[in-house]
């Protein structure tokens, strides 16, 4: 419905959207976008609420690590929201592995917040599954299929053939404002004449 607001920028006779139709965005693209924004949100949380997160997981003292992961998440998010979203999602999958490994270190029996770590692990595993589905989806949707491309060998664009076309528009007069400085060849060609004229000129 954002187009309703942007109609302010249109004039009276400009067409305005009545009903919206099918989009160029596929399901995999929408999932990538959602995961990208999720990355941005998580990254900001890790960056600015690192203390709360480590306290909730019984990982006090690891705030710097959580903040570093926050920066990493922001990177995943930015790439996932870009046209190179497949790179963003595959980098998220790698990041999920790192998150799981880090959480596993907190699954100690002496950690009083072990239950919270378990919940966090389950959440990360769920998101990992979505990341893999999304990464595979966008890779499949936007890749160039392997195999021989179509042949355009006969697409000359010249009905009378390439040889006849070479120089066929030499009759065209380049406008004065688009002329370049004289070419080296032109300067060389002119030089002998100019020299002859100079010699003929009375001193």
């Amino acid at each position: 419905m954002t187009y309703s607001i942007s109609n302010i920028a249109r004039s009276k006779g400009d067409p305005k959207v009545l009903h919206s139709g099918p989009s160029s965005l596929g399901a995999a693209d929408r999932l990538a976008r959602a995961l990208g924004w999720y990355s941005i949100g998580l990254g900001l949380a890790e960056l600015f609420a690192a203390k709360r997160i480590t306290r909730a997981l019984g990982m006090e003292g690891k705030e710097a690590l959580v903040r570093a992961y926050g920066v990493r998440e922001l990177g995943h998010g930015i790439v996932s929201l870009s046209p190179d979203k497949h790179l963003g999602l595959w980098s998220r999958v790698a990041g999920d592995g790192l998150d799981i490994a880090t959480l596993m270190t907190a699954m100690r029996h002496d950690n009083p917040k072990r239950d919270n770590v378990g919940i966090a692990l389950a959440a990360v595993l769920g998101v990992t599954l979505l990341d893999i589905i999304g990464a595979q989806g966008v890779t499949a949707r936007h890749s160039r299929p392997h195999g021989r491309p179509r042949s355009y060998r006969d697409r000359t664009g010249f009905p009378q053939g390439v040889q006849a076309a070479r120089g066929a528009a030499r009759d065209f007069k380049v406008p004065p404002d688009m002329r370049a400085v004289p070419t080296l060849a032109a300067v060389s060609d002119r030089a002998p004449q100019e020299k002859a004229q100079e010699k003929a000129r009375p001193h």
Partner: protein
Amino acid sequence: MRALVWHGKEDIRCDTVTDPEIEQPRDAIVKVTSCAICGSDLHLFHNFIPAMLPGDIMGHEMMGEVVEVGPEARHKLKVGDRVVVPFTIICGQCDQCKRGNFSVCEATNRKKYLADKVFGHPTAGLFGYTHLTGGYPGGQAEYLRVPFADATHIKVPDGIPDEKVLFLGDIFPTGWQAAVQCDIQPTDTVAIWGCGPVGQMAIRSAVLLGAKQVVAIDHLPERLEMAEAGGAITINFDEESVVERLNELTGGLGPEKCIDAIGMEAHVSPSMPDTVYDRAKQMVGAESDRPHVLREMIYVCRPAGVISIPGVYGGLVDKIPMGQLMNKGLTIRTGQTHVNRWTDDLLRRIEEGQIDPSFVITHSVSLEEGPEMYKVFRDKQDSCIKVVLKP
């Protein structure tokens, strides 16, 4: 009516929208018979060009039949006329239009206040593009309102298929201007980066204008094959060094004329580390464009040569080697295309059979399939080079 509408990054939808209406006396309404997806539409698709708004109708390469004409356009247009609509909206009366600099028309950008802030001074209004250029609804739709219609049109005769003349509205004159502003001499090597639709047109234009040799650079086999069919020597940058091969082809001197038909979204590859650097900066908003091609052109171009840039750039670029550029005395020519400056001549060349621009069409589909074709074109799937839509 139905139209392809921008809703956000990578989100184009085939929506039902209200019909356009005549607003100004110089307006006309055109029933679109054919339109195309342009490479620069992908910059909007990726939201790399600022100031797009949800609800904007896409498309700036279109043609059709005039169905309604405002009172002040009737001396030039009548209902039933068949027209190609240039992507630049022109008044035909301001100083710039009189000089033929149509893409910087001083009267047609209806959002001058935005353009003044961003560009310093406004440029022409463009169809289906950012609000910096007026935010005019585009032509990937069933109907289009053409402002300043008495000047903003190219009449085409009946009997020529849409596919042969449609590209007079953008990619053909864009490729042509890219070559013309190189001032090609019979001794010149013209190197063209990018074998997309504009690159293909630039190749044909350079061949027609009589370059000694035309070299095309890309990495997609089908695009290189099409370039070769048009008379170019090809370089696949995945397989060989562009700089080494260009020097080899020019006896170590470098090409006299270089054309950037890629623009702000250069291919990213670990084998070209500057492209990875640019992509990373672009993602975090520290740089808007990826100018790998500019750097390579400046490096390899023969001193005193010309660099022509039809490829679209959106904002700020980084690490441009000004030292090389200055010391080599290179000339840079760029700009949106002054479409109407070239179209009479180009239409004649099409009619005479010198060139048939329809060679570049690889996909022709209905408007409803448009959103999916944006994805196919962007991902270069199914050997897609140029998509034509039939509303």
